[in-house]
């Protein structure tokens, strides 16, 4: 993030040198020879011309991407500068496990010619950092010594599978600037520089599918991501940057960090989708591994997603010269009503316009013909048209640095986590926290112009999830448009992947005026309720601004009512403010949801802890409530969206009878326990900028909790306790004042360590003897249960051994009962007196350990 900011500060100005050398009417492109880049604060401009080797902005500031410039062109408006390049990879960008294929240590300045046709080789001209010198070294020759550090050597060719000798011819820039000859790029016959049309389309369709699949009726998003992950092995191999599987695994879907720069997850998903749709192996591996391809995809992705709605229009707007409309394209555009709201969803409309123009201009990119008759899609495209008119020419005016306004726009976002469990830190930190979170959210996503009325639903979902790939060649900021965006007016506080799916689901239903039911499961403390609240909150904001139809939110909680019948009463009361008996309420509700919804508003019903409603209901009132939850949403015109939350994943299966199961188009979603990284982010976001914890201490807490339960509440509780411990001990030792490992360990001990051992150690002598007697008797009997009489005999014997006066039966029973009340031992049949059955509630080893240490 910080890097992102610094780069922005060092602004570069890009200018064409001379006049266009050629022009492509059809594509409305003008080609140039060279471009000059002037860097703020430096006097001389850098000029890059065709055939030169250039550096392109990437993830890593120290190792920008290297490429050879093949073409430079601009579109009609002259605003967007695009460069077509041939990529080179650095050693560090070659996947770790493939490096050994080289068979020797790579030279520090060595780079490889990158050959992969599926890689997008179009980059934004404004990501070019400058020129670099590359020297071709024949394979047999040693690397020249004593040359300047700045010079890079190329010897071999890397085609994502192996290293091969590089034909020096390939290093020559192509002559035709219009369309680089596809065959000139080495032994493989694929067109290297031109983005393969089908690839592009797949990329787009992939994106869209992704969006729709998350809301698709039967697809469990989790399974899907797993699926994609498994298919991804080739891609995995490549991604040196995607180091930790933890980040790219399915749990990562829940990225809480608002502005995390790593977009791995989404990336995976996108790829996964691509792969899902098209299993042509070769192609996919190319796609995955080729850096350029990625860039282009990501660029498009970003745009498409940003303008979730808008993305429909490029697809559905005409490009008659594109006959390649396929079945799934159509599919896509219809499904696009649930546009995937990706990370960058917060682009301002102007951008959308830009994107749109580009799509229209470029035959390569425009893929679909207008087929979508969906209401939402139409609505959306009309909105986009409007937008285009309004904002088509204002891109340049909108620049970054709107940070200042953000805080104001963000006020509503403040409660996201707070709602689930507040009061983590002390009062002071707490209040500060809120501010900071707000602020952070603002600045984190601040590069986008202020949200305008027209910008459909763009700027609200998933602020920090960029679609940009996290693979070596991921000039995330390669698009010119990104830097010019400023903060959207508002967006939901956190970036839960789940949130996005829920959001998509509800929003699509609201827009379509249909109903549906979603089942959300997950263990406690994974943010289910908080996420839904957050989603609803942001939806309601959109509704206020008339972006989507009005919706009404009703919440009931199965645990917060005394019996399930009260659900009707509560729903009715919240819906109409009427009071009624459960039966009457049920009848009224039935009437209400059978008729078309009044005022055309959608009702969103959140049913928390649904298990408590269902189990009893099934027996007593014969599916009625059940029907509310699962049948009503499917009725036409009822406009009821039901979100149900429970802990168990298989609740629907367990309680559903076939006839019920058949009528629910149930969308599932499962919240995974937090991983330690997410927990860490949660903590940091809570105490943002208040440096209260040592890094290690934070790690310890989050790892420990992740290993135990992944419960965010637990995590925060531990931190809270640790700060208290620190506060108390802080006065004595003059430590750094930070919460350190020792404090955290102490808190963890307090909360997780079993108290049995301590209890045994602190027990009185007779109690300890009794426990010993129990064990002795167990050993004698070879059973894990004994009667009091048997144990008592042992107890008396032990007393004599210890030289104590033997206890009598009454005393013995007292001791036994006392141990029983602490549940160190379990007693059964307390009326049986001497024949009371005794079992240990602790393992024998623990008892012996505790007694020995005494």
């Amino acid at each position, binding site marked *: 993030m910080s890097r992102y900011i610094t780069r922005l500060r060092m602004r570069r100005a890009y200018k064409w040198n001379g006049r266009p050398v050629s022009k492509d009417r059809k594509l409305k492109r003008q080609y140039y020879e060279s471009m000059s880049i002037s860097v703020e604060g430096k006097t001389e401009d850098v000029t890059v011309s065709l055939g030169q080797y250039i550096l392109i902005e990437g993830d890593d500031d120290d190792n920008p991407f290297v490429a050879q410039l093949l073409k430079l062109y601009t579109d009609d408006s002259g605003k967007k500068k695009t460069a077509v390049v041939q990529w080179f990879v650095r050693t560090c960008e070659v996947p770790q496990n493939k490096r050994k294929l080289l068979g020797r240590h790579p030279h520090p300045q060595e780079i490889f010619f990158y050959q992969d046709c599926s890689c997008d080789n179009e980059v934004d001209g404004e990501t070019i950092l400058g020129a670099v010198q590359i020297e071709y070294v024949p394979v047999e020759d040693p690397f020249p010594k004593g040359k300047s550090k700045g010079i890079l050597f190329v010897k071999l060719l890397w085609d994502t599978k192996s290293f091969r000798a590089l034909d020096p011819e390939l290093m020559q820039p192509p002559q035709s600037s219009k369309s680089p000859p596809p065959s000139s790029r080495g032994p493989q016959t694929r067109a290297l520089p031109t983005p393969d049309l089908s690839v592009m389309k797949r990329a787009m369709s992939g994106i869209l599918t992704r969006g729709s699949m998350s809301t698709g009726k039967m697809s469990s998003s989790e399974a899907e991501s797993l699926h994609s992950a498994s298919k991804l092995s080739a891609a995995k191999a490549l991604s040196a940057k995607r180091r930790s599987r933890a980040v790219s695994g399915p749990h990562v879907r829940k990225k809480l960090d608002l502005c995390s720069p790593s977009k791995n997850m989404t990336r995976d998903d996108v790829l996964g989708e691509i792969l899902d749709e098209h299993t042509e192996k070769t192609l996919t591996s190319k796609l995955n591994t080729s850096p350029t391809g990625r860039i282009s995809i990501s660029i498009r992705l970003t745009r498409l997603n940003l303008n979730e709605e808008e993305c429909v229009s490029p697809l559905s707007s005409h490009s008659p010269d594109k006959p390649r409309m396929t079945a799934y394209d159509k599919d896509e555009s219809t499904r696009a009503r649930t546009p995937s709201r990706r990370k960058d969803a917060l682009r301002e409309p102007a951008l959308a316009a830009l994107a749109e123009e580009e799509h229209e201009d470029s035959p390569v990119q425009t893929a679909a013909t207008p087929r979508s008759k969906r209401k939402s899609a139409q609505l959306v495209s009309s909105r986009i048209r409007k937008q285009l008119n309004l904002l088509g020419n204002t891109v340049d005016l909108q620049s970054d640095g709107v940070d200042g306004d953000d805080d104001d726009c963000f006020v509503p976002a403040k409660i996201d986590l707070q709602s689930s469990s507040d009061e983590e830190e002390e009062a002071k930190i707490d209040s500060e926290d809120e501010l900071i979170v707000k602020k952070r959210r603002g600045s984190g996503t601040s590069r986008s112009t202020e949200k305008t009325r027209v910008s459909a639903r763009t700027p609200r979902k998933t602020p920090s999830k960029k679609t940009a790939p996290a693979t070596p060649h991921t000039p995330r900021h390669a698009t010119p448009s990104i830097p010019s965006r400023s903060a959207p007016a508002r967006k939901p506080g956190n970036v839960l992947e789940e949130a996005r799916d829920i959001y998509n689901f509800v929003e699509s239903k609201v827009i379509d005026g249909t109903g549906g039911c979603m089942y959300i499961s997950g263990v406690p403390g994974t943010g289910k309720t908080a996420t839904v609240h957050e989603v609803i909150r942001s939806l309601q904001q959109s509704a206020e601004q008339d972006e989507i139809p009005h919706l009404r939110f009703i919440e009931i909680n199965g645990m917060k009512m*005394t019996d399930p019948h009260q659900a009707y009463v509560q729903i009715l009361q919240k819906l109409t403010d009427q009071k009624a008996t459960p039966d009457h309420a049920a009848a009224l509700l039935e009437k209400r949801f059978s008729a078309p919804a009044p005022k055309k508003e959608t009702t969103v019903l959140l049913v928390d802890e649904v298990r408590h409603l269902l189990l009893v209901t099934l027996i007593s009132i014969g599916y009625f409530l059940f029907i509310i939850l699962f049948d009503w949403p499917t009725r036409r015109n009822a406009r009821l969206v039901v979100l149900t939350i429970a802990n168990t994943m298989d609740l629907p299966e367990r309680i559903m009878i076939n006839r019920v199961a058949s009528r629910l188009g149930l969308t599932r979603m499962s919240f995974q326990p937090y991983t330690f990284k997410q927990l860490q982010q949660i903590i940091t976001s809570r105490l943002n900028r208040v440096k209260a914890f040592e890094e290690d201490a934070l790690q310890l807490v989050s790892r420990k909790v992740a290993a135990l339960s992944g419960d965010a509440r637990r995590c925060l509780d531990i931190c809270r306790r640790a700060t208290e411990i620190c506060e108390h001990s802080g006065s004595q030792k003059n430590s750094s004042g930070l919460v350190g490992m020792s404090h955290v360990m102490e808190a963890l001990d307090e909360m997780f360590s079993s108290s049995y051992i301590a209890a045994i150690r602190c027990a009185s*002598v007779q109690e300890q003897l009794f426990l010993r007697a129990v064990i002795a008797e167990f050993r004698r009997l070879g059973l894990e249960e004994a009667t009091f009489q048997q144990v008592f005999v042992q107890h008396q014997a032990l007393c004599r051994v210890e030289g104590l006066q033997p206890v009598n039966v009454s005393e013995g029973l007292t001791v036994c009962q006392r141990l029983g009340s602490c549940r160190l031992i379990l007693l059964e049949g307390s009326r049986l007196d001497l024949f009371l059955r005794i079992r240990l509630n602790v393992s024998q080893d623990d008892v012996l350990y505790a007694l020995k240490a005494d």
Partner: protein
Amino acid sequence: VCKRQPETCSDSCNNITLHKLLRERLCHQKLPDQPVGLDSQYKHLLELLRRTAVHGESNSVLIVGPRGSGKTMLLGCVLRELMSLREVQKNVLLVELNGLLQTDDKIALKEITRQLHLENVVGDKVFGSFAENLAFLLEALKKGDKSSSRPVLFVLDEFDLFAHHKNQTLLYNLLDVSQSAQTPVAVVGLTCRLDVLELLEKRVKSRFSHRQIHLFSSLSFGQYVDVVRAQLSLPPDFPDPKFSDEWNHSVTKLCEDKTVEEILRRNFNGSKDFRSLHSLLFLAVSRVSVSHSTLREADLIEACRLISADSKANVLHGLSILELCLIIAMKHLNDTYDGEPFNFQMVHNEFKKFIQRKSHSIHKFEKPVVMKAFEHLLQLELVRPVDSGVCKVQREYQLMRLMLEHGQVMEALQKYPQCPTDVKQWALSAFG
């Protein structure tokens, strides 16, 4: 005479004051000034509740410790100190619930609304259903916020019993409030069960902060004796300094006595908690009177005897010779058959064998008389039917078990007044 009158008067006055003072201590009528040996726990709990009371931070905590370890006392002391702050006194609402009294959520909710005086808020509105009650209470709690609402302390005594309520609705809701930005609440649970967390449903457990304050006494015997001395000593502000000096001196001497030390150690070995100590001391102190103005060694010995007496052995002392003989017969049966159950007929046979051998010393009883005696033992629950469910069997043949230990029988025989020697010998002999 004139001189002696005021003296006896002052003696009896002293005695009354002494008894009153010690009774307050030993019968837990008054909180001690400072909990003994629980300093860190005291600080922790005080700090925690203070945060709720003063800063409005919600929290939840469990105080876990064996019976008699001072959980309620600790909480009482903390609340006393907390309430002495003026800002707290005015602000904090205290709700005390007990799992033994509020046996289900319905009663508990009624009690909460009553203690929060919420019924006044709605004026004449009659609190109807349980459901309304819950909805109302939750609404009330939800409306509050950290800064403006008065914090509410919920004290749940016998916390584990609340976990047995249906669905744990009450706990879920209280803990849910404590985890969200609503009215600040502190939920303090008192329980003696170490495994209390396992009783909580996972959704309830997740909402609980997992703070547990354990009260395990780690007193050494020396400290224990110090506590005894402190408990018995009179405060310096006692009205008659001479009397109190004398008393304190005698207490100090008493504690150094070997026999007393042994008694105390025995008690200490049995249980470290102060409740059993208090009952011992209470018995001893109650023997102090005007004529018997200091606590003596004999008082403690007698108290110890009373307290450690085996209840069943005491019952045996009141039995007739015939009943005692039956018990002995049963004991022999137990020995012969290794604890297998027996019936009346077997006992009677055993008894008859004994009578035949020693016909001169024991009166010969008719079978119905023996039966009657046996039934008396049954009523005293010294013998018990093996399974009460099957009563179809004739009384004579119903299987029974002796509820006495070998040692108890022997001890009773030793102490039985004027027990015939034949009977004693029979009991001691290896076989009937």
